[in-house]
């Protein structure tokens, strides 16, 4: 009977110790899960941050799905590892010993009860251990420091919010070509090679010779293999036009109005020379386009490529204080969605104000005759200015048509229809332009490969 009660007592003591160890393991697991969560969030933040910087050098799409994936992957991994990974019981018990100051009784008992059960001190150790467990205040073992963890998460979230200032997750720049979520800079850089993606342009590209014919009709001087055509001279113009055409267009407008020149071809060389210092519309300034021509060029904007023309016309309309608003034909707006429209209203308003101020200055400048003659002068100047705007659009159109012609994938291997001089000069122009750092790396290789594969017959 005594032996039985002793055994029962021993069993109870052992059970109490085992329960204590289980409780410690549960506390440790809770703490590890929380740590896994915090580390996962931290890793997700770092991943997204790294992705942002990688995007500078490697072109790839960042979508909401990718962001979600980058967020959930490390958090999920952290949580799964925290739950699934086995808990090192020995190390845990040793840590409990140190934290509660059991003087290594728990780890010693745990080890000897498993391996050396016949040790004479084991029973004594068990008794003392149970009395320690019962009497010792055990609250701060593996205590989860919620405040600290929350603080870390808040810091991460605040940092993430600041990061979103640089990364646009809204999908505003998402285009129909599937190229979405680009930053404004990336979108503008890459837009010139993205035109081919619109439906209308694809349809036109499928008709052999259509683009060539359009180009020749639109630019008779260049299509006649004029030796004056120097694509190299266009490089700065085109690149600058992509970025700075707001200010430079206004400058161009001023210069055009000031010169009051009806014959653009006579000023071709001067204009070309001055363009190397930052001017615009050098090579095509010799086209003394009539209003009909400009109208025909406007009609070419149906495929959505010619928003520059639209913009210039709208601006011209504003500058002439909307007098001719009712007379002008409605412009096609199909392509608005595919063009970068990052210009702010404020800048536009400033430009309009500048143009108005210039126009008002100029209306007084001629001053040689009556107010009617001044008004006529002003109207003619305004038309010239408007024409120059349209040239800007035509120039962009010309450039983009070339890109379409050369970059379209579905006519690879077919006859180009361009003369070898044109093709060579344009190839040189394009390859020289590739050195521009704003052109994405993978596009450079793609374009270079494309031109290198062209065989001259």
């Amino acid at each position, binding site marked *: 009977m005594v032996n039985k009660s002793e055994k029962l007592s021993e069993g109870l003591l052992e059970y109490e110790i085992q329960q204590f160890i289980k409780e410690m393991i549960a506390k440790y697991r809770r703490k590890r899960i929380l740590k896994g969560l915090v580390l996962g969030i931290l890793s997700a933040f770092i991943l997204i941050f790294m992705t942002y910087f990688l995007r500078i050098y490697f072109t790839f799409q960042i979508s909401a799905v990718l962001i979600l994936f980058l967020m959930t992957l490390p958090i999920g991994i952290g949580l799964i590892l925290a739950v699934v990974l086995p808990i090192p019981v020995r190390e845990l018990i040793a840590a409990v010993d140190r934290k509660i100051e059991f003087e*290594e*009784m728990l780890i010693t*008992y745990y080890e000897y009860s498993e391996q050396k059960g016949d040790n*004479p001190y084991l029973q004594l*150790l068990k008794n003392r251990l149970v009395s320690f467990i019962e009497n010792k205040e055990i609250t701060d073992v593996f205590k989860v420091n919620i405040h600290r963890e929350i603080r870390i998460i808040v810091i991460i979230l605040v940092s993430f919010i600041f990061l979103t200032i640089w990364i646009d997750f809204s999908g505003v720049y998402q285009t129909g070509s599937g190229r979405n979520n680009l930053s404004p800079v990336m979108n503008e850089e890459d837009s010139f090679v993205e035109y081919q993606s619109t439906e209308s342009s694809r349809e036109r590209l499928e008709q052999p010779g259509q683009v060539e014919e359009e180009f020749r009709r639109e630019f008779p001087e260049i299509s006649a293999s004029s030796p004056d055509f120097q694509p190299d001279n266009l490089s700065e113009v085109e690149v600058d036009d992509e970025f700075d055409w707001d200010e430079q267009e206004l400058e161009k407008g001023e210069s055009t109005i000031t010169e009051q020149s009806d014959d653009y071809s006579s000023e071709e060389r001067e204009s070309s020379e001055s363009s190397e210092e930052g001017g615009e519309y050098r090579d095509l300034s010799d086209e003394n386009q009539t209003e009909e021509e400009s109208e025909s060029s406007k009609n070419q904007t149906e495929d959505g490529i010619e928003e520059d023309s639209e913009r210039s016309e709208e601006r011209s309309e504003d500058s002439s204080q909307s007098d001719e608003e009712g007379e002008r034909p409605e412009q096609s707006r199909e392509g608005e969605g595919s063009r970068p429209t990052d210009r702010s209203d404020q800048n536009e308003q400033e430009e309009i104000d500048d143009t108005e101020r210039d126009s008002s200055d100029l209306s007084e400048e001629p001053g040689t005759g009556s107010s009617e003659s001044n008004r006529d002068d002003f109207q003619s100047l305004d038309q010239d200015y408007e024409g120059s705007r349209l040239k800007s659009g035509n120039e962009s159109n010309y450039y983009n048509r070339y890109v379409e012609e050369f970059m379209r994938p579905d006519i690879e291997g077919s006859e180009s229809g361009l003369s070898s001089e044109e093709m060579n000069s344009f190839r040189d122009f394009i390859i020289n332009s590739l050195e521009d750092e704003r052109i994405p790396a993978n596009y450079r290789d793609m374009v270079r490969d494309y031109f290198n594969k062209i065989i001259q017959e």
Partner: protein
Amino acid sequence: MEELKVNQVEEYSKLLTDARKEIAKVIVGQQDLIENVFIAILCNGNVLLEGVPGLGKTLLVKTLGMVLDLDYSRIQFTPDLMPADIIGTNILMESDEGRRYFEFKEGPIFAQLVLVDEVNRATPKTQSALLEAMQERRITVAGVTRQLKEPFFVLATQNPLEMEGTYPLPEAQVDRFLFKLKVDYPEFDELKEIVARTTVNELVDVNSIIDSDQLQKIQYMVRDVPVATEVLEYAIKLIIASQPEGGSESDSVKKYVRYGSSPRGAQALILAAKARAFLHNRYNVSYKDIKAVVLPSLRHRLLLNFEGEASGIDVDNIITDLVSQVEV
């Protein structure tokens, strides 16, 4: 051995506490010294006491012999002391019938508690006579091996100041001491008490508390004290860290130590920790026990290099640095 019972362990622990109290009747202060001597005795180890003369070393050993009811002997080492003077010799005897024969005359080593005073004054040859006795608990004279009485302890003293005319103990012999204990000067109050006690006619009566059999039982029990693997590994880490070629993290070890502790040092460390746990009425070894005995266990096992000797580096400082650097 029969299974230990709670009351049995507590009984022996109480005996040891009483023995310490009995010693304290004679020896004033020096609690750490007394505890460490007790630990060494529980480990069946030898102790090297280092201290200037007049600090009560001989008195301590004498009192200890009385309290533990052990045969006590004292040997004063001098340069002309011969091995036979320690271990004994065969002398020619003549019987009543006129027959002559050799009879072995036991030396002072044949005791249970041997105090070797100024052990470094004897020649190496004489010192080496202690070697077998300390380690093997037996001696060999004229081809005959004789067992020493159990338990057997050697408590040797040496003067750290007078180095002239001394023969420093060889490393092999020093390693055989479980502990090297430093006997410090007494504190003010302790010295006052010493003077008050020893300058009167009243003699203190010291009783025997533990007999030899009980002591041997305790020694056996001490070896059974459980030690967790983590604690054992900590002791091993300390030993490894004391070796300059063992990848020690301590700069002072790398700079000033020529030889670190031997494996015997690790044995001493663990065994002493067990004895300390038992002495403190605990049933397992903790990190505290290891740290408490690391200095007396290792200070005589670390040999300084020339730079360390020339700079007057204290080995205790190196060991303290070691303990602070090795993580639990």
